[in-house]
């Protein structure tokens, strides 16, 4: 489901050269505690290729200016660079128009924007919003807030013991009172890839708009807005090899036009008098104030980088890496993996029997291995699986089987220390 990958050679013929890819990421060649860094915390944030780092530096050295506001040369230049990224993203996700691509701070702000703006207009007393039991806090709390404000009810579609949304139960929650559905494309805590297309279609059968939290999907796969037919889709640059502080909210033009602005200020207006303000057109209506220009430009460089990759080859490489890691970790009898869906992206949440995740994290860190430990901003998921915390190894296409082996040795060390 992509528009750009068809330029590449057929997937079978392509061979993914991880050693070459790793050269693009300077941080992967640094050391931690005197050991080579093994970075397995990609679901929290990914590392950045040199081209993104260079784009940021170049922007501040040669292009810095405010956008949409000046007649002078640099202002035009910055505006063009900023809007160029919007064009790239429009093509990258196959949105129908640039008006549907709104720059936000990240996934969190994307969800909040929709919850507040859409909610103000379309969610009322007695209405319902539906999410799932595997959501990140950023796709729970904004809905709780708007439901509280509007006197609406939040319904939660359950997950099974493999960490998969139970689609039949989800379908039962949809009714005439449901005003919005929101769920993750890929779970950050479990790695589950949800059957988004099917779930979107089920909501659309009732005429209900759907928001997809794509934070964990974009780093692993190409997505196509028109093919998915979702109404909103939101993601963060920093998880897909771009800078922090910027993300995208995609929304269907018709819906975005019907929604009130999220924040007021400069750029989002057409004219202001004390009696009446008229709002700007999309996408500017939702971009109040000076945006994060430099990081948007850097994000553009990340999109260029991704466009040069062979995604079918990456997907099959990551699939193999995940299968290998799953096999290696489960061969250790003390390790239990939480999140065992058949459809997973490169995330392995695990617990080591008798050892708290935090202790696992500290001990493997002493070997230079970065994993995340805790509840992964998904406390309801931890509750569902009756664990206080897990350790999580999350992979990007630059990770290797050798790094998985290093993690396995790290876990052995944990067991050595704790007995």
């Amino acid at each position, binding site marked *: 489901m992509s528009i750009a990958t068809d330029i590449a050679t057929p997937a079978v013929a392509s061979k993914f050269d991880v050693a070459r890819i790793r050269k693009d990421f300077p941080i992967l060649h640094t050391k931690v505690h005197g050991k080579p860094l093994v970075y397995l915390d990609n679901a929290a944030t990914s590392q950045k290729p040199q081209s993104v780092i260079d784009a940021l530096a170049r922007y501040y050295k040669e292009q810095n200016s405010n956008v949409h506001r000046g007649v002078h040369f640099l202002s035009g230049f910055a505006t063009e660079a900023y809007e160029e990224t919007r064009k790239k993203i429009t093509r990258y996700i196959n949105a129908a128009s640039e008006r549907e691509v709104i720059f936000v701070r990240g996934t969190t702000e994307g969800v909040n924007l929709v919850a507040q703006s859409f909610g103000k207009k379309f969610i009322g007393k007695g209405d319902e919003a539906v999410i799932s039991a595997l959501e990140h806090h950023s796709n729970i709390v904004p809905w709780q807030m708007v439901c509280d404000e509007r006197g609406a009810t939040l319904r939660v579609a359950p997950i099974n013991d493999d960490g998969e949304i139970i689609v039949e139960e989800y379908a039962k929650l949809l009714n005439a009172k449901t005003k919005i559905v929101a769920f993750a494309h890929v779970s950050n805590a479990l790695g589950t890839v949800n059957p988004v297309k099917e779930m979107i279609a089920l909501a659309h059968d009732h005429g209900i708009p759907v928001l997809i939290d794509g934070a964990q999907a974009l780093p692993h796969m190409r997505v196509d807005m028109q093919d998915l037919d979702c109404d909103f889709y939101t993601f963060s640059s920093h998880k897909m090899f771009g800078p922090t502080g910027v993300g995208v909210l995609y929304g269907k033009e018709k819906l975005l036009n019907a929604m009130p602005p999220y924040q007021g200020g400069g750029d989002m207006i057409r004219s202001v008098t004390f009696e009446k303000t008229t709002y700007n057109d999309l996408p500017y209506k939702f971009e109040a104030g000076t945006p994060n220009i430099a990081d948007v430009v850097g994000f553009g460089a990340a999109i260029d980088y991704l466009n040069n990759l062979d995604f079918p080859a990456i997907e099959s490489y990551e699939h193999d890496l995940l299968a290998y890691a799953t096999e290696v970790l489960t061969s250790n009898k003390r390790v239990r993996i939480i999140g065992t869906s058949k459809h997973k992206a490169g995330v392995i949440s695990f617990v080591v029997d008798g050892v*708290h995740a935090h202790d696992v994290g*500290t001990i493997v860190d002493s070997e230079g291995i970065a994993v995340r430990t805790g*509840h992964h901003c998904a406390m309801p998921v931890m509750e569902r699986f009756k664990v206080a915390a897990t350790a999580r190894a999350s992979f990007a296409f630059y990770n290797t089987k050798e790094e998985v082996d290093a993690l396995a040795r790290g876990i052995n060390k944990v067991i050595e220390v704790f007995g």
Partner: protein
Amino acid sequence: MSELKTLYQEMILDHNKNPRNFRAMEDADRSVEGYNPLCGDHYTVYMKMDGEMVKDISFTGAGCAISKASASVMSAMVKGKTRAQAEKLFEQFHQLVTGEVGGENHIEELGKLAAFSGVSEFPARVKCAILAWHTMKSALEAKAETVTTE
């Protein structure tokens, strides 16, 4: 590995495995919950005062080895002490794990607490070590709310 060994000393591993005073207290005259939302460490400290003296202290809950061992050692050390002595121990422990401790002599004074001297090398773990102590301090002051070290 040597730094790691100073963190996970035998005594810490032992107190983690066999925590002392690890039980609920039916007739406590105060109990306070301590919670570290970052890692989910969660303890309740129970206390029974006799005038100015900590007559009995116990705890329940779950968390990482550092937090549990710390709670266990804390309970063993505070039991039978006066409020002022317990507060002094809190201060000493706090200084120790945040790396503010003075010369060698000072460390020797700390007795069992010295096992936690390695924690200061692991800034991310200081909160784990200090959780039960903060909770104990609140119990001394009979503050009923949940304490967090986030």
